[in-house]
């Protein structure tokens, strides 16, 4: 198993930090990619952040009410060693399927 951490992303509008309103996941929980993981509040609005990967939540870096700076660690996942690279997907083992049959020339 390997760990991957993600920082609070740049939420745009020149904002430099955000306040954690509510964690929507907890350590030990498996989340799919794009599942909302946390609701944060900036000076502009409250938004839900989606999970950047699929994995098991290991650590939440901050509690409800804490302020996190853009670029500081937000969440750490435990991921399988067989996870895909940052680009592309892991090819699935496919069943050998054929339409073409062979025949030797007589």
């Amino acid at each position, binding site marked *: 198993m390997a760990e991957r951490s993600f920082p609070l992303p740049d939420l745009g509008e020149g904002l430099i930090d955000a306040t954690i309103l509510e964690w929507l996941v907890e350590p030990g929980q498996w989340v799919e990619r794009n599942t909302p993981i946390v609701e944060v509040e900036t000076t502009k609005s409250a938004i839900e952040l989606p999970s950047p990967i699929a994995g098991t939540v290991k650590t939440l870096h901050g509690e409800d009410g804490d302020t996190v700076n853009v670029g500081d660690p937000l969440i750490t996942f435990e991921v399988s060693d067989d*996870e895909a*690279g940052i*680009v592309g997907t892991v090819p699935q083992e496919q069943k050998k399927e054929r339409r073409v049959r062979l*025949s030797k020339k007589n």
Partner: protein
Amino acid sequence: MTETLVPQGAVPTAQSLSTQQALNRAMRDILASDPKSLVFGEDVGKLGGVFRVTDGLQAEFGAERVIDTPLAESGILGMAAGLAMAGYRPIPEVQFDGFAYPAMNQLISQIARTNYRTRGTMPMQMVLRIPSYGGIRAPELHGESIESTLAHVPGLKVVSPSNPHQAYHLLRKAHEMPDPVMFMEPKSRYWNRGDVDFDNPGDLAGSLVAHEGEDLTIITWGAMVAKAVEVAELAAEDEVSIEVIDARWLKPLDEEGLVASVAKTGRAVVVHEAPRTAGLGAEIGQLLTERLWGRMQAPVERVTGYDVPTPAGDLEDEYIPGIDRILFGVQRSLEY
């Protein structure tokens, strides 16, 4: 020279690893045993590589030997050239096949010919790791097959492993060789596991027989070896016995090994992902024709990518030779 595959699980010194892990282990063993070796490229250090192939190496060997470079392949290979001239044995990485293009000037104009230019006094000992070929649904320029481009450059050697055992030992061997070796890793096979026998590398020169057969020889390399073996297993249902040769070394090609198999079967189909025109299929076909003219039962068939830019992930199943396209190629040869 040909050899048979190391039997799976037959030897106690073997360990089951993915190709990704086998390459990681090979670099760890190289860095530990050769103080002149260095690993560098985009994201190889702190991140551990986009495919985790260099995972943990920077933590173990330090940021002065496992180096994150700027996003500039010309600089990566320029640095490799300078280090090789100074007596280091670098293992640079370009993150994807298509990213080798910006480094072609360093490769062709400097690295490939410096030994020649200096009358053999300045060998450019390095291994350029190139995650290669398609099959992982990646964007454009992340699934290219550039082996014939590299094989055409005098002074470069080109090798492509097809399984974890080969990946481990061929990387170690490439590191020991006096010439710059282009090491083409089949990225769609990074996650496939197999036994790596650390103590018994087997013969690492030339090609090897991946599947024995009598009626026809499929010659291929990299990720296509596994597919060709599947085709051979399907062909057996039709009572057609196919031999699959894993070419492994693409420059120089194992002429004797390829000729020996086709002399036995009388028919050859070359399979590669790269575009057809001026691909290595043409080179191998010509080589077999020169050596076996009049002894083959059919012209050498080619099953290849098309003469188009390698498409992005959504279309790659149409581009990369699949089981049916290879079977059609086999049938064309059988019917001739």
